[in-house]
C-alpha cells in the first residue's frame, strides 16, 4: 500500500555526496535497543513494569471493577433507547400512558449518572496510579544513577543520563496520560459491544461482526507498518535536532568559517529526510482511518439492509435496529483513536526498555556488607601492589606501591597517560583496583561504607562544577549542615570572602544568573571553599588549577597553603607551579613510579625527569 521505495533510500546512509558529512560511528547502544524492541516490550521492561505495578494490585482490581461498571452503564444507553422506542411508545399511542416511558427515561438518567461517577472515579484513580508509578520510576532511576560508579558515568555520558530521566520518563508519562485510558476503553467497548449485539439479535449481530476479521487485519497491518515508520521518523528527527542544535551552538565557528551554505545544504537534506519519513507515517494514518471508517460504514449499510429486511418481515423491532446503529457507532469510534496513541505506546515501551537496562546495571563499586569503623582518620593512604586496567589486558597501573604518610603533601608529575588520574580515582574509590588494595589508615577502602570514605577523602578536579543556587549553597555542598558563619569562615580562609561580598547579592548571589557569573578562578575558589568546609583528612587535587590564568592560579595557590595545612594531600598537575608547595614529588611514567623525593632533592639531582621538566618550565617563564 505504501511506497517502500521511500523508505529504502532513507535507510542507507553515507551513500550520497550530501550525506558523506556525517562520517562513520558505531551504532549507538540506545538506538540498537530501540530497534530491537520496535513493536513489543522486551523482557527487561516487562519485568520492570510488573515490579512497578505490584504494589497496586488491589487498586488495579478495583479499577477493573470501576471500568466494567462504567462501560456497562455506557453500553446500556443504546439498549435503553431501544426499549424506549419499542416499549415506551406503544402505551402512549394506545392509551396515553407515560409511565413505561418515564421508567425507561429514568433508567437512562441513572445509567448516565452511574457512568459519570464511575468515569470520573476511573480517571482520577488510574491517574493516581500512573503518577505514583511515575514518581517511583523517577526516584529509582535517579538514585540508581547516583549509586552507579563514576566508571559507569564515564562511559555512559551525562547526555544520556539526562535523556533517560527526561525524554524517556516523559514518554511513559504521555502514555499514562493519554494512551492507557484510550486502550482500556477501546478494548472494553469492543468486547462489550460485540456481546450486546449478539444478545440483541443473533443473526443481525453475526452480520455486524463480519467486520471483525477485516478490522483485525487492518489494525495488524497498521501496527506493523507504523512500528517501522516510527523508528525511521525517530532517527530522522534526531538528525534534524542534532544538526540544528550543533549549528546554533557552534554558530561562531559556522560564521567564522563561512559554513552557512554547506550547512544549509545539509540541513535541507536532513529536513527533507524527516519530511519524507513523516509523510510515510502520516499516510499510514491516511489509509488506516478511512479504512476503519469504510469497514464501519459498510457494516452499517449491511445491518441497515439486512436489519431493514428483517424489520420489514417483522422479525426485529425498529428499536433493535436503532440500537444496532447506535452501538456500531460506538464500536468504530475508539478504533479510529487507536492510531493516535499507537506511537505513544511505541516510544513508551522503548523508554521502559532503556530504563530497565539502566536499572539492571550493577554498581561497579559495591558497598561492603559489613562496613568497618574508622574512628578517627589520620589520613595515611597506602597503595599495596595495586594493579588496574580500564580494558582487560591493557594495564594502566601494573603494580604500584606507594605510601603517603598522614599530613604529607604529595605532588604527582608525569606525562599524559602516565596513570596519575587513575591513581587519584583509586584513592577516592571511583574505581576498585583489579589487583592489590588501597588502604586508608590501614583499612581496605572496599571495607568502608561510602559515607565514611567520602567524609575522609575528598577530590577536587578542574571541572569545578557549580550547582544552580546561591554561592553559599554551593559552598555548603561540602557540609549541608554548616551555618552561614561557617560558610563565610571557609570562604574567608581561602581569601574568597572579598570577591563573594562584591557580587550583586553577596553570598546569596545565584550563580546561574547573569550577574552571578563567576570567572574560572572564582569558581575554583568556591570549589576549594567547599572542600575546606567538608574538612576531609585526605584531599586529592586532580589538575585542579590547570584551567586558570596566572593571576587566578596565584590566588588559588595562596589559598591552597591554608587548605592543605594539617591534612594529607595528593596534587596532580602538569604545570609545575602547583608542585612548589609539595613536600614530596613522585614522577610517574607508564603506570610506574620513576622518581620519588623532595622537590629540592630532585631538582638538585640535575639529571632526572623532574629536573628536566623544571628547567623547561623555568625557561618558559623567561
Amino acid at each position: 500500500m505504501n511506497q517502500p521505495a521511500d523508505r529504502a533510500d532513507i535507510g542507507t546512509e553515507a551513500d550520497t555526496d550530501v550525506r558523506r558529512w556525517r562520517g562513520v560511528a558505531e551504532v549507538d547502544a540506545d538506538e540498537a535497543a530501540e530497534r530491537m524492541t520496535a513493536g513489543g516490550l522486551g523482557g527487561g521492561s516487562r519485568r520492570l513494569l510488573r515490579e512497578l505495578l505490584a504494589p497496586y494490585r488491589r487498586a488495579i482490581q478495583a479499577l477493573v471493577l470501576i471500568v466494567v461498571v462504567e462501560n456497562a452503564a455506557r453500553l446500556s444507553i443504546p439498549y435503553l433507547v431501544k426499549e424506549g422506542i419499542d416499549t415506551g411508545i406503544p402505551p402512549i399511542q394506545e392509551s396515553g400512558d407515560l409511565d413505561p416511558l418515564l421508567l425507561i427515561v429514568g433508567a437512562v438518567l441513572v445509567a448516565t449518572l452511574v457512568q459519570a461517577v464511575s468515569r470520573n472515579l476511573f480517571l482520577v484513580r488510574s491517574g493516581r496510579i500512573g503518577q505514583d508509578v511515575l514518581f517511583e520510576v523517577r526516584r529509582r532511576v535517579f538514585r540508581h544513577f547516583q549509586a552507579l560508579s563514576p566508571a559507569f558515568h564515564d562511559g555512559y555520558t551525562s547526555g544520556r543520563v539526562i535523556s533517560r530521566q527526561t525524554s524517556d520518563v516523559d514518554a511513559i508519562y504521555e502514555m499514562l496520560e493519554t494512551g492507557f485510558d484510550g486502550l482500556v476503553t477501546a478494548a472494553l467497548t469492543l468486547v462489550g459491544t460485540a456481546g450486546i449485539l449478539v444478545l440483541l439479535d443473533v443473526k443481525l449481530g453475526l452480520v455486524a461482526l463480519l467486520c471483525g476479521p477485516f478490522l483485525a487485519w487492518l489494525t495488524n497491518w497498521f501496527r506493523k507498518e507504523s512500528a517501522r515508520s516510527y523508528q525511521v521518523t525517530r532517527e530522522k528527527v534526531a538528525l534534524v535536532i542534532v544538526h540544528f542544535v550543533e549549528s546554533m551552538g557552534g554558530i561562531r565557528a559556522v560564521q567564522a568559517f563561512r559554513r552557512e551554505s554547506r550547512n544549509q545544504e545539509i540541513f535541507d537534506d536532513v529536513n527533507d529526510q524527516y519530511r519524507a519519513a513523516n509523510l510515510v507515517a502520516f499516510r499510514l494514518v491516511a489509509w488506516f482511518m478511512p479504512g476503519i471508517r469504510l469497514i464501519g460504514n459498510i457494516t452499517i449499510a449491511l445491518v441497515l439492509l439486512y436489519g431493514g429486511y428483517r424489520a420489514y418481515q417483522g422479525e426485529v423491532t425498529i428499536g433493535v435496529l436503532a440500537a444496532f446503529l447506535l452501538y456500531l457507532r460506538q464500536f468504530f469510534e475508539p478504533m479510529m483513536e487507536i492510531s493516535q496513541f499507537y506511537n505513544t505506546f511505541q516510544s513508551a515501551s522503548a523508554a521502559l526498555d532503556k530504563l530497565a537496562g539502566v536499572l539492571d546495571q550493577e554498581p561497579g563499586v559495591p558497598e561492603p556488607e559489613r562496613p568497618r569503623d574508622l574512628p578517627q582518620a589520620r589520613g595515611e593512604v597506602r597503595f599495596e601492589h595495586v594493579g588496574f586496567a580500564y580494558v582487560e589486558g591493557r594495564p594502566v597501573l601494573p603494580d604500584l606501591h606507594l605510601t603517603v604518610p598522614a599530613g604529607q603533601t604529595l605532588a604527582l608529575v608525569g606525562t599524559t597517560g602516565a596513570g596519575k588520574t587513575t591513581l587519584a580515582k583509586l584513592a577516592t574509590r571511583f574505581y576498585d583496583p583489579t589487583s592489590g588494595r588501597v588502604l586508608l589508615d590501614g583499612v581496605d577502602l572496599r571495607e568502608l561504607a561510602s559515607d565514611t570514605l567520602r567524609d575522609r577523602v575528598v577530590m577536587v578536579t578542574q571541572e569545578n562544577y557549580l550547582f544552580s543556587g546561591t554561592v553559599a549553597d554551593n559552598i555548603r555542598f561540602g557540609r549541608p549542615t554548616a551555618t552561614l558563619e561557617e560558610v563565610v569562615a571557609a570562604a574567608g580562609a581561602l581569601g574568597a570572602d572579598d570577591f563573594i561580598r562584591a557580587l550583586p547579592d553577596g553570598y546569596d548571589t545565584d550563580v546561574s544568573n547573569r550577574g552571578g557569573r563567576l570567572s574560572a578562578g572564582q569558581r575554583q575558589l568556591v570549589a576549594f571553599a567547599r572542600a575546606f568546609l567538608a574538612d576531609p583528612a585526605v584531599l586529592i587535587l586532580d589538575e585542579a588549577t590547570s584551567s586558570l590564568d596566572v593571576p587566578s592560579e596565584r590566588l588559588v595557590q595562596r589559598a591552597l597553603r591554608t587548605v592543605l595545612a594539617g591534612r594529607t594531600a595528593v596534587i596532580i598537575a602538569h604545570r609545575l607551579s602547583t608542585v612548589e608547595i609539595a613536600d614530596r614529588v613522585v614522577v610517574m611514567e607508564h603506570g610506574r613510579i620513576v622518581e620519588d623525593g623532595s622537590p629540592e632533592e630532585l631538582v638538585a639531582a640535575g639529571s632526572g625527569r623532574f629536573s628536566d621538566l623544571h628547567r623547561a618550565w623555568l625557561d618558559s617563564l623567561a
Partner: protein
Amino acid sequence: MPDSAGPAPDQDPPAGVHSLWRLRGYLRPHALSMTIMLLASLGGVGLSIAIPLVTKALIDGPVTHHESRGLIGLGLLALALGVLEAVLIWWRRWVQSATVLDLETALRGDLYDHLQQLPMSFHSRWQSGQLLSRATTDLSAIRRFSGFGLIFLITNVLQLTIVTVVLLEMYWPLGLVVAATAAPIVWLSMRFERSYVLISRRVQDEQGDLATLAEEGAVGIRVIKSFGRSEHVSAQYEAAARSLHATSMDKVRLSAKFWTFLEVIPNLAVVVVLLLGAIGVGKGYLTPGELVAFITLMLSLVWPIASLGVILAMAQEAMTAAARILEIFDTTPAIVTGTREIERPRGHVRFEHVDFAFPDAPDELVLHDVNLDIAPGETVALVGATGSGKTILTALVPRLYDVTAGRVTIDGVDVRELRLRHLRQLVATAFEEPTLFSMSARENLTLGRADATEEEIHSALEVSQAGFARDLPWALDTRIGEQGMALSGGQRQRLALARAVLAHPTVLVLDDTLSALDVHTERLVEEALRRVLADTTGLVVAHRASTVLLADRVALIQDGTITHVGDHRELLATVPAYRELLAAEALDDTEGGAA
C-alpha cells in the same frame, strides 16, 4: 543598534491572529490542496448528515409501511454514501499529509537559513535549546493548526449549523433542546481548556525544574560522589518530584472532570430527546424513523462540539507559536555584507580608535579607543587578564561582532565594506573552546575549505600535531563530536587549530588555542606554527609566556584598551602589570628560597 540582539528569549511576544496571518505566504503554493481538503471535509459533513436521513427514510418507508420496494435501493444508497465518505476522508488526509509537511519543512528551512545569518550578538543571548523549541514544537503547532485545526474549525461550525437546522426542521422542540445544549458546552469547554493550559504550563515548569536537577545530578556526578552527597541530591530531587506529582494530580483531576462532563452532556441530551421524542412519536408529531435519525444526528454532533474547545486552544497555540517564530524572522541581521574585495591581500590589519559595547549594555564599553597596527606577516600577541576584552578584540576582525565606534581595516579597507564571505576567507580563527560538530573528522577539518586536497589536510594535521585523527577507527571518516568518538580537550584544540591552518588565511587568529595541551605537545605545535606564521599575519591571545614567544610583538590590554606594545622581554622588564600576568609567583618563590 537595538535590533541586532533581537528580542528577549524568555518572554513570549504578544500573539494574535495577525501573526498567523503573516505566515499565509507559506500556504499560498498549497491553495489547491487546501481547497481540496476543505471541499473533502465539507463533503464528509454532508455525508455524515445524509446517512442518518437515509436510515430514517428506510425505517419510515419500507419498514413501517411494509413495502419491500425501496428497501434494497435505500440500503445500496447507504452503502454508496458510506464508501464515498471513506474515500473523501482518505483524499483529505492524503492531500493534507503532503501539504502540511511541505509547509512545516519550508518554514523550518527558512528559519534555519535566517538564524545562520543572525550575528553572534543574537546567538549569545539565545540558547540553542530555545531556538530548537521554535524549530520543532512551535512549527508542529502551526502545522497542526493549518492542516487540521483550520479545516475543522470551518467544517465543525458548518456541521453544527446545518445539523441544528435539520433537527429544527424535523421537530422544532427537540431541535431547540439540542441547540440549547451546544452553547454551554462550547463555553464550558473553552473555560476548561483555559484552566487546562494554565495547569499544563505549571506541570511543564515543574518538569523543567526536575530536569535541571537531573542534569545537575548527571553533570556534577563526580563532585557529588567525591563529597558523598548522593543522599542530599537524591532528597532534593525527590522533593521536586513529589511536588510535580501533586501538580500532575491536580491536572488529572481537572481533566477527569472535563472528560466526564463531555461524555455526560450528550447522554443527558439523549434523556431529554428520548422523553420528548417518544412522546412526540406517541402523539404522532414525529415518525419512529425520525426519532432514530434525530438521536443519531444529535450524537454525531458530540465530537464537533467537544472539539471546538480543543481547536480553539490549538489556534491559540498556533498564534503564539507564529509570534515566537516571527520574532526571529523579524530580527534583521545587524551585520550585513559589504561589496568590496581585496584583490591581492597582504594582511595589514589596523584597529583605529575602536570602541565596543554589547548591544544589551550599550553604556558599558568593553573596549575603548583601541589602536593597533599589525604589519603584513607580523604576529602580535595579546596579553591581558581574564575579562579584559582580548577575545572580543579578535572577534572584531572577521566581524563576528561589529565595532561600535572607530574601525578595523585590512589593507586599508574597512572590514564593513568587504564582502562578508571574502572577509571571512581572509581571516581564520582557532577558538579556545573548540567547536566540533557531530560529523566526520574530515568535514570538521575542511569547515573553511571544502575543496582542500589530501596533502593540504595532511600538512595541516602535521602543523597542529593532530596526526591522531588518521588513527581513528575509520580514519578521517570517523564521526567525532557529541554523537561520535569522544576526544580529549587537547585533541579537540589541535583539530580546531588544524581547521584554522587549513583555511590558509591571510590573517590567522589564535584565541588561546593551546591551553589544554601538555608542555611537550605544546612545544611541538609552537615550532610548527612558527613556520605557518612566518608569512601570515597573526593575532595570538596568550596566557602563557611560551605562547607569547610565537609573536614578534606583544600588546598588553588592560581594562578594555591597549596600554603597552612592545617586545616580550622589554615589557617584562619595564611593565609591572605585564610581569604580574605572565611571570608565575613560583618564580619569585624559588628565587627567594634560593637567596
